[in-house]
């Protein structure tokens, strides 16, 4: 497992060794200059999607076939990918938190709860998006999975734009917002648990799909 993790991290680093430090600096500058946490949140989302690129590296070099000849099992091969996504997203969230704190120390602003809440929210949503993409990518390839998910998200956002006002009348959105404000820890814990549950389910689905694959 240690070797597989090294392989994933080394591959991604060789691909993004110029991009990642550049983005880290860019987002830090933008965050400090605009005093806007958006760039910190966006970094988390970006990193999770970057972690998916390991699959396209695999597809380009026939890694799947080679991996089957190594003394590792399918749970480990797939597990390494999920772990790397966790490491990337966790690292980005931590970096975002540090930058957010520095920005607040410089500007004298508070709003630490907003920072943590925002990072947590984007982490949860990104995790659900990316981990849900893994089984589809293992089944149909990364490009098709990305395109498919783009269509799904465009449809979701489009639907929200078109029917959002009607939905607001039907769904108890205000009550939800009030509840979130009253019990932030409960909601945060619930959201994180949901993301973890999605991750576990998607991991199992990915392994089952991967086991049936032939290279």
């Amino acid at each position, binding site marked *: 497992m240690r070797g597989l993790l*090294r392989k994933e991290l080394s591959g991604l680093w060789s691909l993004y060794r110029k991009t990642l430090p550049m983005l880290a600096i860019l987002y830090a500058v933008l965050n400090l200059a605009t005093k806007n946490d958006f760039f910190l949140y966006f970094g988390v989302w970006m990193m999770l999607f970057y972690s998916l690129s390991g699959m396209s590296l695999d597809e380009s070099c026939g890694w799947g076939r080679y991996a089957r*000849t190594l*003394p590792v099992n399918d749970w480990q091969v797939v597990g390494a990918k999920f772990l790397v996504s966790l490491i990337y997203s966790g690292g980005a969230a931590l970096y975002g938190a540090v930058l957010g704190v520095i920005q607040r120390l410089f500007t004298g602003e508070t709003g630490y709860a907003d920072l943590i809440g925002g990072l947590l929210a984007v982490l949860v949503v990104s995790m659900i998006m990316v981990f849900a993409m893994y089984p589809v990518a293992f089944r149909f390839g990364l490009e098709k999975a990305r395109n498919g998910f783009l269509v799904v998200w465009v449809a979701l956002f489009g639907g929200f734009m078109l029917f959002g006002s009607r939905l607001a009348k039907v769904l108890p959105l205000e009550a939800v917002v009030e509840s979130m404000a009253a019990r932030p820890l409960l909601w945060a814990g619930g959201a994180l648990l949901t993301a973890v549950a999605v991750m576990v389910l998607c991991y199992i689905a990915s392994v089952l799909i991967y086991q049936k694959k032939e290279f």
Partner: protein
Amino acid sequence: MSNLVAVQGLVKHYKGFTLDQIDLTVPEGEIVGLIGENGAGKTTTIKAILGVIHPDGGTIQVMGKDPGDRTALEKVGVVFEDSYFYGGLNAHQVDRILSGIRRDWDSDKFRKDCNAFDLDMKKPIKDFSRGMRMKLSLTTALASHPRLLLMDEATSGLDPVIRGEILDIFLTFIQDEGCGILLSSHITTDLERVADQIAYIHRGKLLFQQGKDALLEETAVVRGSAAVLDRLPQELVLVRRDGGLSGSAALVKDGAAARRLLPDAVIDRTSIDEMMQLYGGREEA
């Protein structure tokens, strides 16, 4: 002598192609050359042996274990023509990665072999020539002290000097009686040089697996008109091809017997190449 690989009745169906009832063995201490035309089923057979694909029938044992068994794979080194690590990585990273995967990984041997092959440990794999990539693949396969090497077109596209170096490595490796190699190749001269046995797959079926020396010494090609070849007894003829540019030809299983029967006919020693050409364009004998 026991078999490192034993394949019995292997069947795999694809749309438009079937690997049909393949029986194949790789005995300890021997190099088995796997030959066949493009698309004949050589790579499919190797993939089935490694557990990369799931067969539809038959049994496969690799050192007494099922394909894909992790303890067996610890003792198997593999070189595929087109499957390895991502090209952005270098040999040093491959070393670190595989030291975390393979229990018997020998970093010292890997580095020493890379050095002997003039492979720059820090250079990205994608910047290597094809020959250097194959050398790196082979070095990787050997660094965990395998008992079995499976090579799929490991020498194709390489110049004769590099091929010679690689074949020498095979011959050194096989000095250990407990080791064996299954080597698929289109370059039949390589197989004539190093293989102990030849297995020929033609359109998804194994035509034969036989000792190379016996195969090349006993069989012969009889050339002449169709009328001359008609005089050969059916049981002697393995395959016959009529109407080629150089007339008709027949591959016979016993060259000496053919010489006795047709003292005036042209009877040549055969080569694996010619054997493949005769089978490849075959008409039923």
